[in-house]
């Protein structure tokens, strides 16, 4: 078996999720190659070549891959596919975007967001916002899959070093064009890889009062999350949404404040190691999964908590 993993990166740093996908690939077993497509990739190939389990790094360093446009990525990956039995990438916003295009170009059924590898052709994934888990068996000649990275431990540094091979870019797909990108203020901790997440819900009452969550997060060095209700109410931007339609997180500590615990929110955080819930409604569903619940007024509790930490 031979597995191609498409790396997630920002042209400078390899995302942790890639190492988690490599570890999922190791569970399938076989030769693992890592594709880096971007520009300019500088030292990224060198960094990636020390990943445990990876035998070869393929580097497509070309301006047409700089912004990870799905049309170009898909053509590149599809052109490499014939020698592989599995093609994997992280279920992040890039992977979800381009991989179905690869699958369609190759006429292969894709398996989205696997959470467990049972055998080289059998996998588990969640459906219905995490309320059910399905086991699928693929009879496709190539298994094309996105991986829910938090379900797998990251691969470490290997003793050896993978070989590095440059590959040439394909002719560019010309009907789409990158215009601009805007990063959400990044003096913050990245949500998906955070060790501690503090999330606020509709209980915060307003955008101004959501600052309380930010203060607590700052004190703990935590990432900030929000429920869909808080996002819908306009307290925070959508990229902070934790839940099936937002981000899926599994930190060591998740603190849910003023969040009732709708199913779709729970789907995004129920794999956290320790869950704390602070809510004035003692019957809120969030308490049924929280390790430590505190019933009361968050506007009294949270400042007190910040004080005591």
């Amino acid at each position, binding site marked *: 078996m031979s597995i191609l993993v498409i790396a997630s990166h920002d042209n400078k740093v390899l995302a942790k999720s890639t190492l988690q996908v490599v570890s999922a690939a190791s569970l399938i077993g076989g030769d693992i190659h890592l594709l880096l497509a971007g520009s300019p990739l500088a030292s990224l190939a060198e960094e990636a070549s020390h990943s445990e389990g990876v035998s070869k790094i393929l580097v497509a360093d070309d301006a047409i891959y700089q912004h990870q446009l799905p049309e170009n990525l898909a053509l590149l990956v599809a052109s490499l596919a014939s020698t592989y039995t599995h093609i994997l990438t992280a279920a992040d916003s890039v992977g979800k975007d381009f991989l179905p295009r690869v699958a369609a170009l190759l006429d292969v*059924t894709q398996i989205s967001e696997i959470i467990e590898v049972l055998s080289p052709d059998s996998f588990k994934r969640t459906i219905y916002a995490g309320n*059910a888990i399905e086991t699928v068996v693929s009879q496709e000649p190539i298994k094309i899959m996105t991986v829910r990275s938090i379900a797998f431990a990251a691969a470490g540094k290997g003793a050896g070093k993978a070989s590095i091979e440059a590959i040439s870019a394909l002719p560019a797909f*010309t009907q789409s*064009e990158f215009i601009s990108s805007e990063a959400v203020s990044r003096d913050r901790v990245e949500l998906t890889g955070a060790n501690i997440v503090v999330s606020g819900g509709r209980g915060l009452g307003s955008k101004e009062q959501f600052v309380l969550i930010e203060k607590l997060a700052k004190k703990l060095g935590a990432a900030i999350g929000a429920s869909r209700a808080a996002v819908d109410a306009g307290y925070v931007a959508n990229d902070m949404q934790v839940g099936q*339609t937002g981000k899926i997180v599994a930190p060591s*500590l998740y603190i849910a404040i003023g969040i009732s615990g709708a199913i779709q929110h729970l789907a995004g955080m129920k794999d956290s190691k320790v869950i704390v819930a602070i809510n004035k409604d003692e019957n809120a569903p969030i308490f049924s999964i929280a390790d430590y619940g505190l019933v009361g007024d968050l506007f009294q509790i949270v400042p007190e908590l910040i004080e005591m930490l």
Partner: protein
Amino acid sequence: MKILVPVKRVVDYNVRITVQADGSGVQTQNVKMSMNPFDEIALEEAIRLKEKQIATEVVIVTIGGEVAQDILRTGLAMGADRAIHIVHDSEIPPLHAAKLLKVIAETEKPHLIITGKQAIDDDANQTGQMLAALLGFPQATFASHLEVVENSAVVTREVDGGHVTVKLALPAVVTTDLRLNEPRFTSLPNIMKARTKPITKYLASEMNVDLTSRLKIVKVEEPKKRKGGIKVKDVAELVDKLRNEAKVI
């Protein structure tokens, strides 16, 4: 400009689903079904483009059994001009859905195809991208803002850590994220009016698409339940537990 909006009938997002005891799937009989919420956002966007006189016609299309007609009527009541029903009784993977939709797109020749980023039943997040690839169209997934400028679509996409704006030459496929708009409610007069709008039927089995699945779902189970813990009496106890019992801070 013509817009095609593929929509899917799913278990209503407010329903707490039940996994069948025999592991065969999720209970979908006798539960409330509705249009996939992300598809509803897609349709709303298409209707708004028509109201701005950028689009001239909005056509919705679904794949499903006879019962799927109900969401087409909902879509027509929201403001779609006409509907296409690809009749097929069993579940099909996104790849097959995309192939059937490609047949419709080749007949209808839309300038823009807008659909939801994912259906809330299988959470696959594939159909729009696959349809774009099969048609050779550019794509913009997870749209939070869409503007049609001359012969192109300028789309702001929600991505990890921020936003990206891309410009697509039409025809193109756009998939919607939550932030794009808030779908309207249908009014009674519009529901009445929708009854006379046309629905064209196709039989999936007669569309020259191989519908043999190469992916078998062998088991559907409930996720492991997380047990609730304890209630603490005050902040001091909480901090103590987190420091000394859970050791997470």
